[in-house]
């Protein structure tokens, strides 16, 4: 059906609300309590609009569209109502902007700037309430700032089903609270600070780190489980431009209806040290208790010589690969083509973090982002067989940090020590690095292009947010260079070639290519 909003004629689906249609068309109808994940609440009263034929202003969030309906979102009556609702909210709101983390991304501020601009007329004493109330995990509640939109209460009742928060008291004394010492303790707590429209619920992970307007933002994907949640990584560049480093401030959810909806879990949210800490930056060679820097060219030459030295062209058993499903679809495809087919190799093992419990929301049992992709490309979950490795492998390539835990232990370390040439392609440094002869720094998802396949088979492409750290390179670049050193005729120049080839050979990936 068609409805009119202001001077525009818009297509509207049966059963949708005026607010939904307006937002989809890019028309700003301000609102606090409405959130697309929940049923309309109707309590903030900010989204009042004028509906032709209705005597009172109506809520855009809960008024269902009717064919031929005509709505005004900026008439004098509507603008006056918005001002008045804002005035009520600000009447009991503390003047905390100078110290409030939400400044710059606060709806109350934004709406005041757009629709308010009045002088304060409230002369009475404001309600005084508690301002630093720990409510669980990393969250604090400031009851003076709270506008009682109840998004937090509804999130915990309807999304996590844990219901830790409630609405206590009545009238102007109404406040958000919890029962005795029961605090929020679920893996999605961080979303509360995001959905709070003002600075009432704040995340101590972010407290006082920066002002939001200094943040830059890049879209990426979370690598910590098989869901592939869409994220925004927010960072600040250091003032020393020459260094061109970045400081990750926080990770936020990016909406994707097909993958993670509106949310991310706390593991992905609070793991921003993963992106920048303990990064491997240089190509290193460990030789006789000394560590020497090499160039990539040199290292790849050495590696290709070692491989060629094994004299493999048919089925050989002396080259081993331990990979992980942190590699992208394209990288796994390249590995398959270079090592399983071209070089001939049956020794590919998968070393991933141990699977843990999945929850009923986003978190999958597998704690790596591309296990499904690996399977679609023909890799099975074979954990490394260290007896085999010790007995037969002469040249071992390890991709990823999957061996870290294991390589600290005696058995694995002993096995590794028996392998003459070991190459580690990892993004992070860590324990067990000294077990390897060659350490080659590689990129994380935020530093390269590629695609990963989530647990349900959704193929998601991503672009880099930054350049790689130090001398790190994306694995796919390294693999193509290695292939050239090994003398293959494949004309892979960049990812596009790889993707096309992947789509040709594996119908599953055709859909992403289209």
């Amino acid at each position: 059906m068609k409805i009119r909003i202001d001077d525009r004629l818009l297509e509207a689906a049966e059963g949708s609300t005026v607010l939904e249609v307006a937002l989809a068309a890019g028309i700003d109808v301000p609102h606090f309590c409405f959130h697309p994940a929940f049923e309309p609440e109707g309590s903030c009263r900010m989204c009042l609009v004028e509906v032709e034929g209705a005597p009172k202003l109506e809520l855009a969030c809960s008024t269902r569209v009717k064919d031929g309906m005509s709505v005004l979102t900026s008439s004098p009556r509507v603008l006056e109502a918005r001002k008045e609702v804002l005035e009520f909210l600000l009447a009991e709101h503390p003047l905390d902007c100078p110290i409030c983390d939400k400044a710059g991304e606060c709806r109350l501020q934004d709406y005041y700037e757009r629709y308010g601009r009045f002088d304060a007329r409230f002369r009475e004493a404001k309600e005084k309430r508690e301002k630093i109330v720990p409510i669980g995990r990393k969250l604090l509640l400031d009851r003076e700032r709270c506008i009682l939109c109840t998004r937090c209460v509804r999130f915990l009742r309807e999304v996590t089903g844990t219901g830790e928060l409630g609405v206590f008291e009545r009238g102007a004394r109404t406040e958000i609270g919890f029962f005795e010492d029961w605090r929020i303790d679920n893996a999605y707590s961080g979303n509360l600070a995001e959905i709070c429209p003002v600075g009432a619920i704040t995340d101590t992970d972010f407290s006082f780190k920066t002002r939001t307007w200094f943040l830059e933002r890049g879209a990426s994907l979370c690598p910590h489980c098989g869901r592939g949640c869409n994220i925004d990584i927010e960072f600040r560049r250091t003032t020393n431009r020459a260094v061109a480093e970045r400081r990750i401030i926080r990770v936020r959810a990016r909406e994707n209806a097909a993958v993670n909806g509106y949310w991310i879990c706390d593991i992905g949210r609070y793991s921003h040290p993963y992106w920048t800490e303990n990064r491997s930056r240089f190509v290193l060679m460990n030789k006789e208790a000394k560590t020497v820097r090499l160039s990539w060219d040199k290292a790849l030459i050495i590696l290709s010589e070692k491989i060629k030295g094994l004299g493999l062209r048919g089925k050989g058993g002396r080259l081993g690969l331990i990979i992980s499903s942190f590699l992208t679809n394209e990288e796994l495809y390249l590995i398959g083509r270079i090592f399983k087919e071209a070089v001939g190799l049956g020794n590919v093992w998968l070393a991933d973090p141990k699977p843990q419990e999945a929850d009923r929301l986003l978190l999958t049992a597998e704690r790596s982002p591309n296990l499904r992709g690996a399977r679609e490309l023909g890799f099975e979950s074979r954990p490394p067989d260290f007896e085999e490795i010790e007995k037969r492998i002469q040249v071992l390539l390890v991709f990823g940090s999957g061996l870290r835990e294991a390589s600290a232990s005696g058995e694995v370390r002993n096995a590794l020590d028996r392998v003459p040439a070991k190459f580690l392609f990892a993004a992070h440094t860590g324990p067990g690095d000294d077990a390897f002869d060659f350490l080659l720094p590689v990129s994380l998802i935020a530093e390269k292009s590629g695609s990963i396949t989530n647990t349900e088979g959704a193929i998601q492409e991503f672009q880099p947010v930054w350049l790689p750290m130090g001398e790190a390179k994306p694995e796919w670049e390294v693999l193509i260079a290695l292939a050239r050193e090994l003398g293959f005729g494949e004309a892979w120049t960049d990812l596009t070639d790889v993707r096309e080839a992947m789509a040709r050979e594996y119908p599953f990936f055709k859909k992403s290519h289209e």
Partner: protein
Amino acid sequence: MNHEFAPQVLAEVLAVAARYPRREAALLPVLRILQRVSGSLGRAEEQLAAELLGLDPVRVREAVTFYPLLRQKPAGRHTIRVCVNLSCSMAGAEHSLACLQARLGIGAGETTADGRFTLLTVECLGNCDQAPCLMVDGDDHGIVREERLDEILGRYL
């Protein structure tokens, strides 16, 4: 406050709950029972109600803090509720209140030192033709003049 609840209390609660299509609808009557038994609704009472009715305790507390007749803090043996709404105010409710405050030595919202009376002001009790009126516990008292106060209070030990 008794943290262990006698079997007859549990039985009474469950009998009330059985009258409703869903147990949780019985929350208000159940809380009244527990308040009668324990004097006020503390953590133990809230958790018991939650358990017996299949509710999260936070929901129980939402009700306890919303409804004025449910109290979280212990009160005196008898609660005096003085109406100060319009008809009673016009009939001299403020004067009755002042007399009670003087007689009991407490202000509105407080409890006498001997734990006998809690004095509260409330909105309309629905007894306006008997203004000024007050309630003591569940009893209505209308046309409350200063000279009657001693007699009324005397009924409640």
